[in-house]
């Protein structure tokens, strides 16, 4: 699968990017491992993950071209 990953807030600095495109992803866990390998520093931060604008808690089923967002705690308002 091809997956678009977005990083927000402080995570854009940890990863050095706002967006990264992944190819050949087999599952949500697979994606998480790939991201952790690419950006080991990310493990030092709190974040939640959204798939297609919905926060996910467990391992969801990913589909081709899904958008996955790594989001630190919200600080708007």
């Amino acid at each position, binding site marked *: 699968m091809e997956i678009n990953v977005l990083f927000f*807030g*402080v995570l854009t600095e940890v990863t050095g990017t706002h967006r990264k495109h992944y190819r050949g992803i087999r599952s949500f866990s697979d994606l998480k491992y790939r991201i952790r390998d690419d950006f080991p520093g990310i493990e030092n931060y709190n974040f939640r993950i*959204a798939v297609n*604008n919905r926060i996910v808690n467990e391992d969801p089923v990913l589909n081709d071209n899904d958008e996955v*967002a790594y989001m630190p*705690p*919200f600080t*708007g*308002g």
Partner: protein
Amino acid sequence: MRIIEGPISPAAISEIVVRGGTNTDSGAHSLFLGQVRKDLIKGKYVKAIEYSAYEEMVMMEANKILKSVMSEFNDLISLEILHSKGLVNAGEISLVVMVTAGHREQAIKACAKLVELIKDKLPIWKKEILEDDSEKWKQE
């Protein structure tokens, strides 16, 4: 919900107020304005905040919030949320919430509730820009 590039101008705020006044069933408007504070952080003043948002998700979550508040309070006539993205200087407004209702009780309660939900549910992040141009992501 509208996401505004930069600060929310007094003109935009008064436009919202004027629009709210066109409905003669309204008896009460409760507004909340969030302003960028010139906080002192380790000896340096905040000169601006840079907001970033996951805009698509903000719009989706805002819709959920607005629907849930509308269904919780039966006297509400209209709800409006404006939030800045990008750079907003200290002293400028970055958030406007306006609730219009028939009577004061629900206008006031629903506005307070919306402000909390906005803080809690909308994927928006702020980075403080200090007077020496150093930057600091706001942690919760």
